[in-house]
C-alpha cells in the first residue's frame, strides 16, 4: 500500500486479433521517472502493448492503468493529459509551420473553441527549444528532414505535458547520428524532467545504453525484464531472436552490447539444404531431445500440433522448426489440423515421441494414421509402467494399429537416427 502509484500498470493483459494471440497475460508496472525499453522480435507484441496502453484497442482480459486510473475509464482528453504518444512515423498532409504543429499537442488543455493562449505558445516554444528546433518555428513540417520531423513529433508530445510518454520505434527511420540524437533527448527528459518513458525499440544496443530497464516480449509474452546488464545476454538473443552473438561491454558507458554473428538456424522460409523434413509428433516435453538431435543431425524438422506454453514448442522454435500451434488446453481446431496435414504432406518421415495423449491432442495420432503406408513412421518406445493414455484407450488402439501397419518402433534417439540414416536415399530431397 505504501508503494507509490506507478505511471503505467499493465495487469495480466491479453489481446487477440481473431485467432492470433498478440499478447498473453503480460503483467508489469513502470514506476514514475523510469525509461523502459520494450524489446522483442517483429510481431512479438511491442506495438500492440503500447496501443493497448493508449486505449486504442480493447483487451481481451486484464487492464491497463495510467497513474492509478484504468485507461478504459478515462475520457479521451483525460488520457491525452496523462500519456503522450510518439508514433513510429507520421505523414502530415499539409506543410504546417512547426509552431502550429507543436501547438496541436495543446489540444487536450484547451476548452471548446478556446484559442491557444500565450501559455500554450510558450509551452510549444519550450518544446521546440528542447529538440533544438526553437529557431525553426515557421518552417513547414513537410519541408524539414526526417530526423527533424521526428524531433518535431517529440516536441509535440512534450508540449502535451503528459507525465508519461510512449514511443513506438522512435528511431527506426533515422540514421545513426539522429538515432543517438533522439534517444539522448529522450534520456534527458527522463533525467531532468522526471518524465516516464516507455519506448518500443528494435536496437538492443541502443536500448541497453539509454534505458533503465528492458522488458522483452516474445510471441506476446513477457520473457525477460530487468536492468540492461541483467537482461541482455547471449542466451536471450539465441532464445528470443534466434541469433548467435557475442556479448561485450562498452568500455566508456559500461552498457552491454551485442555483436551479432549469424542465425541459430536458417529462419523458416529460406531454402535449407539439409535432410528431411521430418515431422515430429510430441507434447509435454517428450519430444524436446528428439527435436534437438534431429536438428543437429541436419534434418529439417516440423512439429505439432503442440499447445502454446509446451516446452516442446519452445525447443522446436529454438531450432527453427515450423510448428502447428493451438492455444493451451483447447482441443486441436480445424485450422491447426489443416496446418498439421500440410506438414505431413511435405514430410519424408514421421516420428512419434512417447508423449502423453489426451482428448485434446489425440488428433495428432489420428493424422499420423492417415499417412500410414505412404510415409515411414517411427514410434519411440514408451517407458514401461507409465500412464500415458488419457483417452480411454483410443490412443493405445491407434498406436497398436500403427505398429501393425508397418510403423517401426525404436528405443531411443540414436536408434532413430540410425534408422533414418539407413533410409537416407529416400529421405534426401
Amino acid at each position, binding site marked *: 500500500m505504501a508503494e507509490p502509484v506507478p505511471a503505467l500498470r499493465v495487469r495480466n493483459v491479453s489481446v487477440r486479433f481473431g485467432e492470433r494471440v498478440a499478447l498473453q497475460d503480460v503483467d508489469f508496472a513502470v514506476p514514475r521517472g523510469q525509461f523502459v525499453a520494450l524489446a522483442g522480435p517483429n510481431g512479438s507484441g511491442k506495438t500492440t502493448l503500447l*496501443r493497448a496502453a493508449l486505449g486504442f484497442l480493447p483487451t481481451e482480459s486484464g487492464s491497463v492503468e495510467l497513474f492509478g486510473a484504468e485507461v478504459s475509464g478515462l475520457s479521451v482528453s483525460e488520457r491525452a493529459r496523462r500519456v503522450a504518444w510518439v508514433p513510429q512515423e507520421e505523414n502530415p*498532409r*499539409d506543410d504546417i509551420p512547426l509552431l502550429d504543429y507543436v501547438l*496541436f499537442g495543446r489540444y487536450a488543455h484547451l476548452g471548446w473553441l478556446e484559442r491557444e493562449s500565450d501559455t500554450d505558445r510558450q509551452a510549444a516554444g519550450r518544446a521546440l527549444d528542447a529538440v533544438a528546433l526553437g529557431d525553426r518555428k515557421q518552417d*513547414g513540417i513537410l519541408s524539414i528532414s526526417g530526423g527533424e520531423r521526428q524531433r518535431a513529433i517529440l516536441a509535440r508530445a512534450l508540449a502535451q505535458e503528459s507525465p508519461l510518454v510512449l514511443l513506438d520505434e522512435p528511431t527506426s527511420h533515422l540514421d545513426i547520428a539522429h538515432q543517438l540524437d533522439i534517444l539522448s533527448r529522450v534520456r534527458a527528459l527522463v533525467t531532468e524532467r522526471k518524465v516516464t518513458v516507455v519506448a518500443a525499440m528494435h536496437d538492443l544496443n541502443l536500448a541497453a545504453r539509454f534505458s533503465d530497464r528492458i522488458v522483452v516480449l516474445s510471441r506476446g509474452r513477457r520473457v525477460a525484464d530487468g536492468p540492461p546488464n541483467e537482461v541482455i545476454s547471449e542466451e536471450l538473443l539465441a532464445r528470443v531472436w534466434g541469433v548467435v552473438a557475442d556479448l561485450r561491454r562498452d568500455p566508456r558507458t559500461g552498457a552491454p552490447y551485442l555483436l551479432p554473428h549469424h542465425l541459430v538456424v536458417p529462419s523458416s522460409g529460406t531454402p535449407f539444404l539439409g535432410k528431411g523434413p521430418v515431422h515430429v509428433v510430441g507434447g509435454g516435453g517428450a519430444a524436446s531431445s528428439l527435436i534437438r538431435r534431429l536438428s543437429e543431425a541436419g534434418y529439417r524438422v516440423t512439429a505439432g500440433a503442440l499447445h502454446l506454453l509446451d516446452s516442446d514448442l519452445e525447443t522446436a522454435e529454438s531450432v527453427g522448426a515450423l510448428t502447428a500451434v493451438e492455444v493451451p488446453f483447447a482441443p486441436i481446431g480445424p485450422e491447426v489440423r489443416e496446418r498439421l496435414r500440410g506438414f505431413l504432406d511435405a514430410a519424408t518421415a514421421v516420428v512419434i515421441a512417447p508423449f502423453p495423449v489426451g482428448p485434446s491432442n489425440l488428433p495428432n495420432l489420428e493424422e499420423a494414421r492417415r499417412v500410414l503406408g505412404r510415409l515411414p513412421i517411427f514410434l519411440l518406445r514408451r517407458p514401461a509402467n507409465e500412464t500415458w493414455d488419457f483417452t480411454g484407450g483410443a490412443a493405445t488402439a491407434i498406436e497398436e494399429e500403427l505398429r501393425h501397419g508397418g510403423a517401426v518402433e525404436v528405443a531411443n534417439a540414436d536408434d532413430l537416427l540410425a534408422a533414418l540414416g539407413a533410409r537416407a536415399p529416400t529421405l534426401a530431397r
Partner: protein
Amino acid sequence: MATPPPVSTESPEARGRRPWVLGLFFLLLALGVLFSPLLGTVAIDPATVLRILVHQASGGALYANPCAGASLPASGCSGLIEIVWDARLSEVVLAVVVGAALGVSGGTLQGVFRNPLADPFLLGLSSGGTLGAAIVVVLNIGVDEQNLFLPLFAFLGAIGTGLVILAAARSRFGSVETLLLTGVALSSFLSSVLSLILLYNPTGSLQVDFWLLGNLGALDWSQDGIAFGIVLVVGTLLATHGRELNLLQLGPEVAQSLGVDSRKVRLRLLLLTSIATAAAVAFTGIIGFVGLVSPHVVRRLAGSDYRLVLPGAALVGGGFLLAARDISLVAFPGTLLPIGIFTSFAGAPFFAYLLYRRRRVSTMGAV
C-alpha cells in the same frame, strides 16, 4: 551566395494562414447578393431593381414609389416587386444558402475522409434524395402541396440514407472503407429502385430528370427560411470543428492520442453533413461539384487550416452557386436552365485538374 529557399514537397500555398481572404470572400458574396437580383428572365432596368430592393428592405420607408419612371407590366408596380423581391431575391438567397451547405459539407467530408476528392454526395445521399422526390412525383402525393411534399420527401430520403450509413459506421467494423463501400452499395441499390419506379411510370421521368439536374426556381420565402435556418445552425456547428479536423489529418490514432475522440467526432461530423446536404438536396435537387470544388479554392487562397477552410468553403460555395445562376442568365437570356448543368460544366474540368495534379504529386513522391 544566399541560402536557397526551403524545398517544399507540397504546393507552397499550403503553408501559412491568410484569414483576411475570408473577409474578401464575404465582401464578394455580399456584392453578389446585392447585384444578382439585377439579372432575371424578364428585363427590368437596374435602377428600378435596386430601388425595389431598398424599398422592400426598409419595409417601404424608403423610395415610397420604387417603380417611378419604369415601364410597368399589367400587374403594376406590385408585379415588379414580386418579381424582384419574391422571385429573384429569394432565388439568390437560396443559391447562397444551398451553396454554403454544400461547400461546408464538402470541406468537412474531405477532412473526415482525409481525401481531397470527397464531396457531399459521396455517401449516396443524392440517391436517397432523388428516390424520395421521385416517390412524390410518381405517386402524385399532395398535388397542390408539392412545394411542401417534394422537399420533405427528398429530405427524408437523403437523411434516411445518411442515417443507415451512420448506423453501419457505428458498428464494430465501421472503418472508413466500410463506410464508403456501404455508401456505394446503398447508392446503387437506391438507384436501381429509382430506375424501376421510373420504368413503370415514364410520365414522371422528365420531372425527376429535371430535379436531378438541380434548380433554384419555384420556391418562396418560407422555404428559403427553412433552408436558411437548418443550414445556419448545422453549418455553424460544423465550422466549430476546424481544430478537430486539423488534428484528424494526422490520422485518427494520433488525433486520439492528442485528445480528440476521433470516432465520436467523425460520427458527429458525418451526421451534421448529412443534415446539411439533405437540406440542400431537398430544396434544389442534385447540384454537383460545388461541395467538391469550394474547399479546394479556399485551401489554395487562405491556407489549409480547417478553421478557415470550413467557413471559407461555405462562402465560396454560396458564391459559386450564385455565380452559376448569374452566368446561366447572362449566357442564355430568357431561359430557365437547371443550375446543376452549370456547376457541373465548370466543376468537371476542375475535378480533372485535381486528379491530374494529385497523380503528378504522388508520382513525384514515389521517385
